[in-house]
């Protein structure tokens, strides 16, 4: 169960099904994350997620204000997030971003979380909670 207030149902229009928005605090709990950067930003809203180790896939399929789950630990993961307006990063499989990535995340004000879960399980848990795929939201908007 997610504690009260950590999952927000938002309906864009009455005719459309509710869009599930998670707070970053909710993501942290669902994925049992450690917060490496941005402890003070856990109240931010996350509208969708994408998961990739190749950054061009992120640039192609992400949407602004979404979450990126990745196993790529170098500074390009953070730079990609910045370019694509990704709101927060989750490093999976127990990986930790390298020093360059952490420093860049601090400079850019992008929260960084780390989870021991595999990519598959991390994505599965968020999907079960109703968080949409960024690619799905994107194609609907196009």
């Amino acid at each position: 169960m997610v504690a009260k207030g950590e999952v927000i149902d938002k309906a864009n229009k009455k005719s459309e099904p509710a869009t599930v928005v998670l707070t970053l605090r909710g993501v942290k709990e669902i994925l049992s994350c450690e917060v490496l950067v941005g402890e003070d930003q856990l109240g931010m809203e996350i509208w969708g997620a994408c998961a990739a180790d190749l950054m061009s896939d992120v640039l192609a399929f992400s949407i602004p204000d979404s979450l990126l789950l990745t196993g790529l630990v170098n500074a390009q993961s953070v730079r990609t997030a910045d370019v694509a307006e990704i709101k927060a990063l989750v490093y999976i499989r127990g990986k930790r971003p390298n020093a360059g990535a952490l420093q860049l995340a601090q400079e850019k004000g992008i929260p960084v979380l780390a989870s021991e879960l595999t990519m598959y399980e991390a994505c599965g848990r968020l999907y079960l909670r109703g968080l949409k795929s960024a690619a799905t939201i994107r194609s609907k908007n196009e």
Partner: protein
Amino acid sequence: MNDDSLLDLEFEIIGGDFNQAGRVSTKLKSILKEVGFDPQVVRRVAISTYEAEINVVMYARRGVLRFKASPQKIVIIIEDEGQGIEDIEEAMKEGYSTATDEMREMGFGAGMGLPNIKRNSDQFEITSEVGRGTRLEVTIIAGDGTRS
């Protein structure tokens, strides 16, 4: 330049320098945000220039990115001195890649770079000469100008 030009900038990109890759794009993004361009336009410019910058870093010795913006449109020209592209038609297909393992370890080489640039542009021109280099010209319509 037209009288209504807002920005006319030039940046050098160094080939092979993965740590610096993306600096030009993020800098441009900050400038465009500050000027007040529509966030969607800023995102399209940032993604296009980032992909182009990464291509120069991966496949060229050096490159130059020229950037011109008016309230109506943005034109980005990226010219590099590098290995060039043998088959542009193939290179434009999603998933086609000649990247090395090292490039993939850096998170690139998915074969999405050029298609991503095209997808984010309103006009896209590419010319290339094997052994000499590649030239991209990307135009992005900024709509009815900057936000007031």
